[in-house]
Each structure stands twice: as C-alpha cells, then as structure tokens.
C-alpha cells in the first residue's frame, strides 16, 4: 500500500476531492444501520464505512482494483441514506461517484459485464432505443423460461406497456388564465417511455396553476444514469446539452424554475454546479441551472395548490424516493400537497430504506434489488393504504413489480384532485375511499397526530 500512489493520482482534481472526503470519515458507524446492504448482510464491507475504507485502499494501491472491492462498491445503491445520519456529514455522494469512475477506468470487467453495461448506458437514456428495446423485451419475455437466469431476470424487469398515455412534446404549453410563472420541464428519457402520463399530468397541473411550461428542444437525459455507472464523460455530455437548452430558454423568455418530476434526475441536476466546477466554460451556466432546478413538489408547495375540485378521500401511502429524501431533503412538501388535495397520507415504515430501484441498480444487481423491493412492498401494503404515491419513475417501476397496490406519481394524484383525469395506474382497480377524516392523517414532520380538538380516544383523554 502506498499513499504516494494516491498523491500522484491526486493531481486529478476528482481524486484529490476523494482523498479529502475520505479524510472526513470518523468511523462513527451511524451509517451502517441505515445502509440497506449492511442491514441485509451485516457485512462491514457492505456498509458505507467499509466502502470508504475500500475506496481508500483502492486509490492508495497501484494497479487494478481488487475484484471483491469492485463487487462491494457495485453493491452500493447510492441511496445516500448514510448521509442522512452521518455525524460529520461525509460527502459520500461524490465519493462513490469518483470511485465508480475510477473503476470504470482501471478495472477490466468480464466481456459480458462490459457488454451489458455498455448496452444499458446507450439504450436507457435514449428514448427511441429504449422504447424499441422494451417492445422487443416484451416479445422475448414470452419465451423467458427458455433463457439463461441472467437474461430471465432482465426480462422480468421489463414493465408492461403503458396504458396508451400520451407523452408531452417539445414546445411551450400556455398557462390557463393569467401567466404567473414561466418554467421549463425536464421531460427526461426513460420516464417518457415507461410512464409518459407523469409528464402529461405535470403539464396539466402546472398550466392550471398559472405556469407557462416549456419543454426545451435538446433537453433530454440529465446524465444521472451514466454518472452512477462511472461513465463520467457521457454524463457530462448529456448535462451540457441540457444546460445549453435551458440557458437558451432562460435568455429567450426568462425562467422561474426548471421543474423535475423524476427525483433521481433532480438530485443530479441540483449538483450540476459541482459537476462542472473545473470547467471554466460551463461552471457558471451549470450553477445557474442548478439554482433554478426544483422538484415539482417543491415548486407547487411554493406557489400553492388550488383547492381540490373533488375531495379524494383515499388513503395514500407515501414512499420517499431516496433521491428526494436523502439527496434533496424534500419530505414535507409532497405530503403537505397530497393532504391539501384531500388524501389521507400515511408513511411507509422504514421510510429511509431504498426500494431497490436506484437508477439502473435493479438491472445490474437484481438479487439485492428484489429483496429490497419485496421488503418495501410488504411495508407499504401493511399500512392498509389504497395506493402508493411516489415522486420518482424508478421507484414506480420497481415497486409495481412487487406490490399489489397501484403505484402512481404524486403529481398524478394532485392533477386528478384538481380537475385532471384519473391516473392510468388506477383505472380498472378497485380502490376504497377512506372513512378517516383527512385531518386525522399525521405528518411525519408535523405535530398533529389525531384530529385537533379531540379530547378523548379509546386510549387517552386530554
């Protein structure tokens, strides 16, 4: 082991940053108990603390990373649950991204692995390729039982075709009534193929609230998928295209916000400033985009939701996507909005735990992803909710595989309550209205647990 090797490499600003981050870890171990892979295995090297040590050793040691190191780092979900409890706020998000990029450069995976990862990186972020791949997958899935295990697992992850919902197209959508805000919407990549209804609901809702919504030409994949695979240059290329498109749009007509309805993308976009910190040409532009980026729930919470046209008294279990909860610290707003739209909101136990989606994780690590998907689904169903609301397409796809509950995006429910159509995921499902008064719903972050004004329940008297 040689720290000199690390020092030599530290001329690379990314690795210099990694070295600094590693130095901040004090080994308290609060991260271990929150880490899904540690909770499943109780193996030190399947915890953030263990992985930080492995990364240190990997960067200090000349030559290719050890295969077991790569395995433990590949198993990391990048869910950032560890960051939420770290006593010293170790910047694990950037550290694991640096480690993945280092592995991509210095480790020679098997040819099947390389091919698989190459195909994912090329296909999923491109909606034309992805759409074609899914259509092909659905055909081939009929013969899945004749396929090898790995292919079978992949085919199992192919979701059914969306219910004919229409995607939004690039262009401008006018505000209903007086325009109060002008916003850009990240239409995204995989989401447009998997669940196009989310963008449609977002546009309907925002225009109803007085926004002109622009889907900028040229803005597509945010770069998150490739970034988390260690393919930094592809990620930056995607990010640059988006930055150019939105800066053009901002300079043309002004932008109050860039709205993201896929929280995995939101976390990456809010970090564009950091991603381009060493790029003098893009740094300032990237910072501007990052500063404008908000999750759709943050934005609507800020501008205010109209009173629901029809009170929807359904019990909704709200699942915190890791990227929203841990990456962006957005937890109160979606719950507050759903409640104000009439829904009875309940938390899913073990809310800080990842559902196993984690970008492309459920494709690359299907076994752990399945355990986590099943665990989260059991918890969601145990709440007795009629449906599950989520703010991220990856979680929707993942959880839909494992739960009997309909899984819909928060925005679809808000749109439905304020005059939009029923979300396609609820059509044909028997969903029961909740007899509980909405105000009895508790807020994970608030104080009211039972109806204010109640002086007695079967358990207590006040």
């Amino acid at each position, binding site marked *: 082991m040689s720290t000199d090797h690390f020092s030599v490499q530290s001329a690379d600003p990314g690795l210099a940053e990694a070295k600094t981050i590693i130095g901040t870890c004090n080994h308290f171990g*609060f991260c271990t108990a929150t880490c899904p892979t540690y909770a499943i295995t109780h193996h030190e090297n399947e915890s953030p603390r263990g992985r930080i040590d492995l990364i240190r050793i990997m960067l200090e040691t000349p030559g290719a990373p050890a295969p077991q190191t790569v395995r433990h780092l590949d198993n990391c979900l990048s869910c950032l649950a560890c960051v939420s409890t770290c006593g010293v706020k170790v910047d694990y998000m950037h550290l694991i991204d640096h480690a993945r990029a280092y592995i991509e450069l210095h480790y020679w995976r098997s040819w099947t692995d390389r091919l698989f990862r190459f195909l994912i990186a090329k296909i999923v972020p491109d909606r034309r390729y992805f759409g074609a791949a899914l259509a092909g997958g659905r055909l081939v899935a009929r013969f899945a039982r004749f396929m090898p295990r790995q292919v079978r697992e992949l085919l199992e992850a192919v979701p059914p075709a969306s219910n004919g919902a229409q995607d939004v197209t690039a262009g401008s959508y006018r505000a209903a009534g007086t325009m109060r805000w002008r916003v850009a919407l990240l239409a995204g990549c995989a989401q447009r193929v998997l669940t196009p209804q989310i963008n449609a609901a977002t546009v309907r809702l925002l225009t109803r609230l007085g926004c002109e919504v622009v889907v900028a030409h040229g803005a597509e994949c945010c770069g998150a998928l490739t970034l988390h695979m260690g393919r930094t240059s592809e990620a930056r290329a995607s990010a640059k295209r988006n930055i150019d498109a939105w800066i053009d749009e901002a300079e043309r007509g002004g932008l109050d916000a860039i709205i993201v309805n896929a929280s995995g993308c939101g976390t990456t976009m809010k970090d564009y400033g950091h991603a381009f910190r060493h790029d003098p040409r893009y740094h300032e532009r990237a910072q501007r985009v990052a500063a404008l980026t908000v999750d759709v729930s943050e934005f609507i919470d800020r501008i205010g939701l109209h009173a629901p046209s029809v009170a929807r008294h359904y019990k909704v279990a709200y699942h915190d996507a890791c990227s929203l909860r841990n990456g962006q610290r957005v937890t109160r707003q979606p719950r507050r909005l759903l409640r104000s739209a009439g829904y009875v909101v309940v938390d899913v136990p073990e809310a800080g735990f990842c559902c196993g989606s984690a970008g492309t994780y459920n494709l690359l690590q299907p076994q752990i992803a399945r355990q986590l998907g099943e665990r989260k689904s059991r918890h969601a169903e145990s709440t007795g909710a009629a449906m599950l609301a989520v703010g991220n397409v990856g979680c929707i796809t993942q959880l839909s595989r494992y739960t009997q509950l309909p899984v819909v995006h928060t925005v679809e429910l808000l749109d439905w309550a304020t005059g939009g159509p029923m979300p396609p995921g609820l059509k044909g499902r028997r969903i029961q209205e909740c007899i509980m008064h909405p105000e009895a719903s508790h807020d994970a972050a608030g104080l009211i647990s039972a109806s*204010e004004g109640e002086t007695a329940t079967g358990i207590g008297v006040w």
Partner: protein
Amino acid sequence: MRQNQEEFFADIARELGAAALDVSPEARRRYGENTTTRGTRDVLGVVFPKSTAEVVTIVAAANRHQVPIYPISAGNNIGLGSRAPVRDGQVVVDMGWHMSRISEVNEELGYAVIEPGVTFQKLHDELVRLGDRLMISATSGPPLGSVLGNAVEKGAGYGPHFDHFGMLCGLEVVLGNAEVVRTGEGSVRPDKVVNWHVSKYSFGPILDGLFAQSNFGIVTRAAVWLLPRPPVIESFHFVFPADDDLATIVDLIRPLKMSNFVPTLFRVCNDLYAVGTEETNPEYERTRGRQSLSVDAHTALRAKHGLGAWQVSGAFYGPSRAALAPMIERVRAHFGRAQVGRFVSHEEAQSIPPLNIAIDSMSGRPGSAELALLKWRPGGGNTWFTPGIPMSGKLAQELDRLGRAIYAEHGLDYTIMHVAGARFARSLHVLVFNRNDPDENHRADECYRRLAREYANRGIGVGRAPIDYHQEHMDMLMPSFKATCNSIKRALDPNGIIAPGRYGIG
C-alpha cells in the same frame, strides 16, 4: 487464537450455523473501534443470535470454553464505548441484527413487547403504521439506537415516559449460568402471560433492577410502556443571555415540574450544545485545538443563530392549540418574572434547528440532527460526562462554574445540556476532541478524570460512563457496594463470562 477460543467458535458454527459467526479482520476491527480516549479494543469475533434459545446456546458454550462474551443490542452507544467491550479479548454477541422483533403491541394497555434489536425508529414506524395512537419516548440520539439497550443502560427521553428503565415491565433474561429467568409475573406460567407486562410489584423481590447497568445477565426481551399520542403537542422555549442565568432557570423550572404543570422534562442547553449541531469550531485552526473557544466567538455564534447562553425548552400535550394557549401563557408569565429570558414560540422554534430537535424529541419522533454535535472539532473523539444536580439553582450554578473552568484548563469547549425534572437534572457534558492528536486526546482524558474526581469529591456520581472509566467510577463507590456487586456476579455468572469489567464488575 487460543485453543479454547477456537473450540468456542467451532461449537457456535456447529450449533448455530456458520452464518451466525463473523471473525473477519474487518468485523473484529470495527466492533472494537470506539470514540473514547483509550481507543480500539481487541475483539475476538462476533456472534449473531436469532433468539433467546440461541443466546442460551452461546452462553453455555462460553461457559464451557471460558470465553468472555460481550452482548450488545442495536445502535452505536456513541461517546460511551460504541460496540466495543470494556476489555480486550471478548466475543461480541450482537443481538441487533436478527433479534429485532416487535412481538406484540397492546394498544388497549399501552405497551409493546420487544427484543434488543428493536430501534427507536422501528418501534416508532410500527406505532405509526398502527394508526399513530401511541408514541415512543424518543431520545435525541440516533434513531437506530435500541429501545431496550437504552433502557437497561438507564438512558432517558424527554416526555412523561422519560425514565426508560422505569417504563420497562417484565424482562426475560439469560443469566451467566445459562438459565433463563423472567422477572415479575412472567414466571407464574411462562405459557400464560397475563400481568407480566402490566405489573411490576408482584410476589417476591423486584429482580429487574439487577439488569440495569450490570453484567449479570443478557436481557433478551421486555415490554416497554407507551404513552397515548395527544392530538396536539405544543412546545415553548426561552433564550437566556448570560452564563450565570442557570441558577434562575433551575429555580424557575423546579416548581413547574414539582406540581407537574408541565408534562415534559426541560431541556436546558448551553450555547455550544445548541449551535454545535450547525457549526464547527471557528477557531480550531488558529488555536490548533489547544484553547477553549473565546468569549468573542461565543458571542458571535449566539448572535448568528439568535440564541443565548442557555436555551430552555418544554412542551404541553393536549386536545387543541386553543386548550393549550392558556398553559403556554401561564408558563410565559412564570418565566417572565425573571425579566431576562426571551420567549420563543413553537412556530418560531420550528425554524431554528437546535430548538426543533427539542420539539421532535418531546413529540416522540426520532431524529438524527443532534449527531452533528460530533463534528464540532475534527478527529472524531467523543466522550460524555454525565453527573447530575439537584434542582437547586445555587448549587447548579456553582457546579456550572466548576465544569466550565475544568474544560478551559484543558483547552476544550464547554458543551452541556441539563435535562431537568422536579428534583433532579441529568447534566450531559459533551467532550468533543481530536483523537488523532495525541495531546488533545490526552487532555480530553485528563479533563474527564478531573471532572469525575471533582464531582465525586462533592458527593456526585455519574449516570452513565464511557467504558474507559467504568473501573474508576466503581472504585469511587464504597467497598461494600463493589463487594455486593461482585457477590451477585459470582452467584449468577460463576465463570464470569458476561462482559467482565463492565461497570467495574467481575
């Protein structure tokens, strides 16, 4: 590894399966690591039981092969020894992984039956799932700490059920001789439990207390009493400007608690305990950690966060905000007599992170915000000195000056929270230091020992202690106390295999 140790591990692997065992270097190193001044212990390995029966198997094997074992629950026990045994050469028995079942929640009678691995977060989540009609007594420590572990270590919360050991009712314990005992009425008919978890005062001696801060047995199951969640919890806060306001604060709190007008305990945090979660020591680089924070820096930090030398927090539980409004007004008027404390409303406090920690913990909501105190100085050293004070303002102020001076002599930053009841307050002194700096590590060690001696000289002991100082604290007690503990140890654990050295026993 010695032969008896190898034979112990072989027995465990044979009887519980190889997956119940981890002797990898990574695991041994991490389980021995801790944040206290003496540092890492040498751990032989880790065993993960799944049930009381498996704990019995482990204890029996430990007796056969004379291998000391060190049981732990869930969480980190940060600042008090983490997961590390008191002495080198012990096998950690980690019940946090598999023994994490909530076997019953009785909403009618308000209790839950839990195993050692059940965390505050898990119990909270389960109660919420069931309709949020009952609430846990939260600490402001890690949400993933063990409810049962915290209780048997005499941990505390902030609400009416703050006395966590007192809220346990009916324990199941594996003794050091591998026998299983149930305290209270759990031993009438083990197959038919009626009053086990609702009555503490049944026939015979109350054995429960033997298993609080001891090493006589391994608690594998217990019931914890739970409080009905009120419709509204409304906090109130007062910010006091001067260090010497502590006497006034203590004397103001006492009558409110004596009459139980305020149902929660009071958190009384000094400036650094409050802002330490939001800041790092701004002078550390300049002073290289050799001096306490300057008066100017204290003043600047207070101004920056709109806080004072002391922050006082409490809360009311009730049916509505309207019903609680007169009670808040009554407390305001009471504190107003001092004419120095500034009132901070519940709404305002929600936007002040250090005060929001008080709100969460008094509302039975686990939170991890207070963990950020540990980054006040670099290097990750942390230990806690936990004496108590009677609720008498004059003495509290005198001890405050004493503690402040000892911290200053050792170049450390005085960080303290008093958790105050009617007659007594636990005084949590935080020592955050750079354990990578041998001089600072030594000063922290000396500071702790000096505090312990000075308080003991005044007849004051501690509530909990870091593993480094268990023997030292036991040696401060009268010899007959120590002899009695060791006699009980010999009776219940004749081979001394459960956590020898813990609490200075065995």
